Structure formats: structure tokens, C-alpha cells
């Protein structure tokens, strides 16, 4: 709980829900006849609506990217490190919008919301959504808010993939694309990890083929396992060694199968606390969206051709110890952008925190981010004067 709101925080924020009646045709062939998107906004939209920035969230993220909902909140939004007055995504300059993606479990239409006109939860019947579908829904939101062009779209990990998809599908609707700790598509190893997570959830006896909400239960063990596995891939060997080493929780070995080492205790805690915050069906949907992401597949598997459609200017960022989406993957994106003759800067930040580094205010990362966002802000003035 914050005693007082830090000066560089956006402070107390209230989400808002936007209802959409226009049917949305999805990649899977199904149609969402109507849906809700829950969003948060920070900062002020300027008179000519040229300072809007869209934030795309990652696998377990949501619309609550910055600030606090109440003074009782233990933690601020998930990207508090980068969003706020004087921070790289400076709310004194930008109007920042973040939404919970379709299929999420934090207020947008998804497995935990009711099917319109019915008393039933969507549960496992919520259609499989793709990154492309999300981008389409985000574009609808853009129209609703009366924004003609984003000053920038920014995202890390799965969020960065949405940014890439935006630049290809709606090139004229954004000026800058910031793609952090992402990949142009998943590797077999990435998909393998996702599959183990899904199996953990689906083989939990409380899963009930996804209809657990109707039975008033949850596949807690499965979600916990999925999260524990995910968490290992977000950290690096070095950061785990530094954080936990082989430290024992009770100072001695217990010669049993309960927690001996601190790292076990940490993972169990992370897994357990996730169970209360996140929905199992949403976890399945999000991992599928990751697996299916492959924008080059529509361009004969040629990423360069795909990115030739883009007109935005790019900043691509990776982190040295990230092995979930390693620097090599960001280099693939950068190399394709260079080959497509796009404007791009690429920086590899030396960091030991693994994939999680994209959420951590590492000085060099923040400096590069800040320098680039200043450029985004300068372009707003240019748009105004033209």
C-alpha cells in the first residue's frame, strides 16, 4: 500500500469499459457479435489528438499498466517503471492508452465473462484469438476514441508482437513502433514450453474441459504449475543464482519433498498468487496467440516482404540474458527491417535479469527508451505544424 502516491506516478486511475456492437470476424472463422474492451488512460489527449500512445500487454498483463486503483493497492500497474510524469512514456507529453486484450480475464470479453444474452460464462467456448485479431480490435478502439494516428505503439514480449503486426496490417495508422524483447515468431522450444504449461492446466482434475467456473472450482494446481514454468523462462540462470543461489529456507535440508531451497519457495509463491489473479482458459488462449504469431506467413514466409509494408519508424530493444526471446530474435527483426529499408534503431541492453528485464528500469534501457520517446514527442510537434 502506498502511503502517498509517488510524484512520478500517474496516481489513482479508474478503468473504463467500451462496448462494441459491430461484429468482429476472427482469424479462426468465428465472429464475436459484440464485445467489451476495458481500458485505462493516462495523461491528456491534445487538441488535435496527435499525442496518443498505445501500450500492448504481454501474456499475463492487462489494462492496468500504471498508477493505482485505490490507496490500498499493494503494487502499481505492471509498467509503472516506464509510464508516468518524467518517465520514458511521459504522461506530461503523451496520452497513453492500455487495454486488456480480447480473451483476457480482467474485464474485456473473455472466458470469464458471460456470453451476451445468456447466463453462461464463455469458459472454453471463447474463440481462439490471434495477435491479428487483437490488432483489429485495437483499431476499433482507436476509431471509438477518435484517434486518427498513434504517435507510437509500444509493447514488450507478446506486446511487441502486437506492435509488429500493427506496422504491417495498418501501416498508416502509427508513426513509431517500439518493439521490446520480442520475436518475429516462436521457436519450437518456445512452443514446447507453452505446450507443457497448457498440459499442466488441462490435466488438472479440476479443469473439467474448461467448464470449471460452472462447477465453482478452478484448476489451481495446473495454473500454478504453468506459472512456475513460465517464471523460470522469464528469469536467467544468473539472476536466479543471484536471487536465491542454493539458499535453504530453513537453513537445513529436510530430507523430504517439501520446500528445501528458497527458489522452490519463491516459485510456489509466484504460482499460488497467480492462481487467484488469472484465469486458466485465458492462459490457454494467450499461449495459443503466441504460438500462432507469424506475420511473415502471409508473405511467403518472408519477413522482409512483410515489413516492407510498414511505414513506421522503429526502435527495437533486446536484453543480453533474455533466453525466452533472446537478442538473436530481435536481431532477426532488425535485420529484416534494415533489408526492408525501414528507419530503425536497435539496441541490445546488457542485463542479467532475463526476459523480465523489459519491466525493470535498467539505466541504459531507460536512457535509450527516453531518447527515442523524445523523438516521438518531437514528431508530434511536426504533425501539429504541418
Amino acid at each position: 500500500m502506498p502511503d502517498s502516491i509517488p510524484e512520478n506516478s500517474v496516481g489513482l486511475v479508474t478503468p473504463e469499459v467500451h462496448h462494441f456492437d459491430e461484429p468482429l470476424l476472427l482469424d479462426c472463422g468465428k465472429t464475436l457479435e459484440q464485445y467489451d474492451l476495458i481500458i485505462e488512460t493516462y495523461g491528456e489527449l491534445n487538441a488535435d489528438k496527435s499525442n496518443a500512445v498505445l501500450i500492448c500487454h504481454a501474456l499475463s498483463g492487462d489494462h492496468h499498466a500504471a498508477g493505482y486503483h485505490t490507496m490500498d493497492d499493494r503494487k502499481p500497474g505492471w509498467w509503472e517503471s516506464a509510464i508516468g510524469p518524467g518517465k520514458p512514456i511521459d504522461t506530461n507529453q503523451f496520452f497513453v492508452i492500455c487495454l486488456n486484450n480480447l480473451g483476457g480475464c480482467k474485464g474485456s470479453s473473455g472466458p470469464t465473462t458471460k456470453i451476451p444474452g445468456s447466463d453462461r460464462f464463455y469458459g472454453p467456448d471463447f474463440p481462439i484469438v490471434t495477435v491479428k485479431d487483437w490488432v483489429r480490435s485495437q483499431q476499433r478502439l482507436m476509431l471509438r476514441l477518435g484517434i486518427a494516428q498513434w504517435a507510437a505503439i509500444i509493447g514488450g514480449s507478446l506486446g511487441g508482437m502486437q506492435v509488429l503486426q500493427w506496422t504491417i496490417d495498418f501501416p498508416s495508422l502509427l508513426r513509431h513502433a517500439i518493439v521490446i524483447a520480442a520475436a518475429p515468431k516462436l521457436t519450437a522450444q518456445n512452443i514446447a514450453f507453452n505446450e507443457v504449461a497448457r498440459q499442466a492446466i488441462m490435466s488438472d482434475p479440476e479443469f473439467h474441459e474448461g467448464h470449471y467456473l460452472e462447477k465453482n472450482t478452478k484448476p489451481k494446481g495446473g495454473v500454478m504449475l504453468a506459472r512456475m514454468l513460465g517464471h523460470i523462462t522469464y528469469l536467467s540462470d544468473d539472476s536466479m543464482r543471484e536471487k536465491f543461489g542454493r539458499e535453504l529456507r530453513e537453513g537445513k535440508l529436510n530430507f523430504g519433498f517439501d520446500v528445501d531451497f528458497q527458489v522452490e519457495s519463491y516459485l510456489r509463491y509466484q504460482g499460488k498468487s497467480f492462481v487467484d489473479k488469472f484465469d486458466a482458459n485465458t492462459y490457454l488462449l494467450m499461449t495459443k496467440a503466441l504460438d500462432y504469431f507469424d506475420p511473415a506467413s502471409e508473405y511467403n514466409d518472408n519477413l522482409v516482404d512483410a515489413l516492407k509494408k510498414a511505414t513506421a519508424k522503429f526502435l527495437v530493444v533486446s536484453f543480453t540474458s533474455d533466453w525466452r526471446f533472446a537478442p538473436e530474435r530481435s536481431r532477426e527483426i532488425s535485420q529484416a527491417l534494415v533489408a526492408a529499408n525501414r528507419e530503425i534503431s536497435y539496441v541490445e541492453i546488457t542485463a542479467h535479469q532475463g526476459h523480465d528485464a523489459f519491466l525493470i528500469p535498467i539505466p541504459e534501457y531507460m536512457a535509450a527508451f527516453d531518447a527515442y520517446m523524445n523523438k516521438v514527442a518531437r514528431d508530434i510537434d511536426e504533425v501539429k505544424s504541418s
Partner: protein
Amino acid sequence: MSLRADLSLISEWIKPGSRILDLGCGDGTLLKYLRDTANVSGFGIEIDQQDIVKCIESDVNVIHADLDEGINNYFDADSFDYVVMTQALQAIRHPEELLDEVLRVSSDAIITFPNMGYWSGRLQLGLGGHMPVTKSLPNHWYNTPNIHLCTLKDFENLCVERSIRIIKRRVVDSRHKHGNWLMKIWPNLFGEIAIYHITKK
């Protein structure tokens, strides 16, 4: 804006409106200057994070990469009008291979390096019996990043071997003042820094 004299000399050699690649671009000074004065576009390659931030601040496109890993992964053949490499060749692990890559991505290149044949260096090694420390080579042998030092003669021999044609050559002193008559007559002895415009034969 005043530009370092060697960069100013290089900028005179580059045609306005060109597309250039600056290998080891540092804080992006040259690219920014050429963009603002000669409508030049392109990329810089740099390995230092702080320099990269400065490039971004100057609105210069910069790619974080290690030149020791080559540039073939990034750039297609003949994708630039010029490649510029100032004072970086001598710090590269395989300068001869990088030169080949440079002349693959661009028909023309401008290369500068400190001349190991400079008289002061020769005196220090020949008479003093120790590795030279000069204004253009300020490091000691144990902490120098310059692992492949050469003289004008060495570089020109390599060019012959690799079928590289030298279009222009200039030598300057460490303050990068344009040459005096000694430098003109005996460049390999009195030139501290060499600047070459090279091309594929």
C-alpha cells in the same frame, strides 16, 4: 557546428544525397552532420550503449552490433553508396575480412586509421626500444584496443593483394590539420592519420 577535421575532410568526399553506412559511428556526429548539411541518409553501427543513446538523441539510425561478427547478416550487396570507417579498422579482429564485406555492401569506402609508420612511433620503437605511445595511439601495449596496427605501406600492400583500388589518400596529424609539405613528400613518415577512399577494382 564545428566538425572534427578528419570528419570534415571525409564529408567533402561524400556526394550529397548519398546513402552511407558508418561502421563504429560513435555518437553519430558524422551521420548527423551529413544528414543536416548534405541530405545524406543511412545507418550507423556501434557497440557502445552510451554512444547508441546519443545517436538516438540525434535522430540517427543506429544498430547495436559487434563489427568482429561482420556485417553480412545485416546488409545486402551494394546497398550503400559509401561505407565509412573512422579509426576502427585497427581494432577489428579480422580487418582483411571486414574490408571484403565493406566493399560488398558498397562499391566505395572511406577508411581512416592511425599510421604506425609515423616518425615518432618509429623512433620510440627503433631507438627507445618500447612500443610507441603517441597522440593518435595513446594506449600502452597492454591496454590498447588497437590489435592490428599498420603503416600506409602495409595498408596499400593489402589493397594490392585484395584487388582494392585506392582512389584518394590524405594524411593528417593528430589534430587532423591538413598536411604540411613534409607529409606530402613522406606521408608514411610524417602522416599521423591516414584517410583513404577505396573501391573495388
